[in-house]
């Protein structure tokens, strides 16, 4: 068994619009090792959710390879893909909107088992009850209710149960706590950590909140306008960012300590360039404080740093 569970190569996702073709993801390559959590971070519109959805084949990417444990999901036919879907599941940002309001909780969580044709009705019900208990809901109370009778945090617990009932290898979490209050956010992050241990999950975790990412991730990939800027272990990246964009993101986080004066962020203020006509060369150069002529002329390739990180920058802040 290979150490790598998910291997994504040269992933491209394009959307046609009236104003032209938008390349939301422009050639992204990464690996997910078994049992690790990789976080994709970046601002709105950077392509992090599109990357996650492309892995889910929702919709299918324009080009590239996505290999899950030896099976290429992009090349797989409809029937094969349906069979493979048991192994990768997803939870979404808005926990209430991602549950069918007309169905009972028991039906919602049971559905993946039914689609997969697993277990008989009694066994399925038992499996749902056990899982509800595991995610911290009382089955006796929850089974026959509908989503509107639950709070956002409870709905996210239900989403997690639905994603885990098939015991997948890979769990994709797209901003799972962004819609929740801090006190509830901590409950869900702890639950995800418990579930990861219990089910030996490998996780792809999408978030714009770097403090949350610091808590959950083993490795972090920073995205800007459809490309990766920097990929590396969470500790290295947070302690000494190599890409100027990573540094800018880190400097913008408000610190809950009044003795720390907020610093101006190390990035040129302005709007995100249009993804229809992204800047030449390095896409971050229009807002980068250290950009040079070379950055406009040449696309920086991802290259490995001695400390195990990879960075796409002509003027990295460390290990140049």
């Amino acid at each position, binding site marked *: 068994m290979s150490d790598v569970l998910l291997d994504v190569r040269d992933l491209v996702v394009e959307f046609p619009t009236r104003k032209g073709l938008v390349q939301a993801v422009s050639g992204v390559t990464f690996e997910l090792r078994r049992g690790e959590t990789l976080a994709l971070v970046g601002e709105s519109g950077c392509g992090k959710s599109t990357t996650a959805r492309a892995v889910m084949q929702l919709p299918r990417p324009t080009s590239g390879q996505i290999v899950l444990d030896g099976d290429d999901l992009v090349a797989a036919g409809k029937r094969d893909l349906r069979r493979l879907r048991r192994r990768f599941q997803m939870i979404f940002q808005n926990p209430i909107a991602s549950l069918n309001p007309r169905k009972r909780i028991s039906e919602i969580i049971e559905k993946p088992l039914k689609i997969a044709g697993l277990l008989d009705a009694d066994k399925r019900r038992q499996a749902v009850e056990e899982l509800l208990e595991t995610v911290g809901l009382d089955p006796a109370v929850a089974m026959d209710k509908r989503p509107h009778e639950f709070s956002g945090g409870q709905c996210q617990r239900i989403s997690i149960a639905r994603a885990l009932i098939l015991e997948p290898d890979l769990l994709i979490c797209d901003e799972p706590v962004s819609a929740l209050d801090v006190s509830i956010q901590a409950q869900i992050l702890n639950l995800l*950590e418990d579930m990861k241990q219990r089910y030996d999950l490998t996780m792809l975790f999408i978030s714009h909140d770097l403090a949350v990412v610091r808590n959950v991730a083993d490795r972090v990939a920073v995205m800007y306008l459809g490309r990766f800027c920097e990929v590396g272990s969470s500790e290295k990246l947070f302690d000494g960012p190599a890409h100027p964009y990573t540094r800018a993101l880190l400097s913008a986080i*408000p610190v809950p300590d009044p003795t720390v004066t907020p610093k101006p962020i190390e990035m040129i203020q302005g709007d*995100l360039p249009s993804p229809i006509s992204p800047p030449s060369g390095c896409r971050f150069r229009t807002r980068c404080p250290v950009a040079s002529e070379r950055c406009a002329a040449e696309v920086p390739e991802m290259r490995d740093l001695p400390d195990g990180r990879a960075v796409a920058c002509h003027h990295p802040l460390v290990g140049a």
Partner: protein
Amino acid sequence: MAAPLLELTNVSTHFHSPAGRVRAVDGVSVSLEAGQTLGLVGESGSGKSVLARTIMGLLPSYAEIPEGSAITFDGRNLLTMDRKARRAISGPGIGMIFQDPMTSLNPVMKIGQQVYEGMRHHFGTSKAAGRQRAIELLTEVGIPQPDVRIDQYPHQLSGGMRQRVAIAIALACEPKLLIADEPTTALDVTVQSGILDLLQREQRDRGMTLILITHDLGVVAGRCDQVAVMYAGGIVETGSTRSLFARTRMRYTQALLDSIPRLDRPPHERLKSIGGRPPNLITPPPGCRFAPRCAFADAQCESAMPPMQADEADATHSYACWHPRDPERVTEEVA
């Protein structure tokens, strides 16, 4: 000490719903001196936005402010004023910016017109002078090419730019008090710091009083003089920002601070979450509203509402808790 610019005394706001009376804001007292910045912090449903709308007079018809509530602004009680007098205060007296700049701006009116509309209404400014002033204001809030932007519509701007326009609109009538209700929640983190810097600069340059409403204690920590923490419709702890963070007394405030993931903590560390969820505000618990979720609660907490009391070290810092945290002790065991 000068009289406060804004003083809320026992302010409540109740909503009539089919299920009963919702006590969204219940007995809030707080005062704010001119030129100060107050951070109003709380989770969803804690009543912070309803409190802001109560001050602004922007409540829906099914809202009721019970007898005994008073909001004194600049020496006058806003709650006993007639509509016309109240309206004259919105703008030159109190300005407000909202969370979502897409829905708070008029999508079919040019940006410039939205900026000078208030000036024309309150001061009878001419169109030409208003336009000129709008360009100045847009420049001041950091909009590039203001002479072009002034004739554009909100959808032609990014989220951050729209929020800057909303700030320009609020500043146009030179308010004494500006209420910013989650002004950066809908924005990216790199845009957020730019907007907060702008608000802080305007507050300082104009000597304006600012109420910054947010769910993010990080935003409050660096930018406010005073903080008030709301839970289930009431203020549970208030004080100078420094004292409130350094000498946190109320158990809920501490639990909230503990549940925030932090950059300086190691990965995979278990977060201290708060179990359960906020109470139903139709039938709130009789005692401390946080008691059902509090690890330190006992019978007294469940039966009697704790009064606000002053911290021994700092009289401006007060809290409502029967079993306050001892700020001198670093860690405490659950009772």
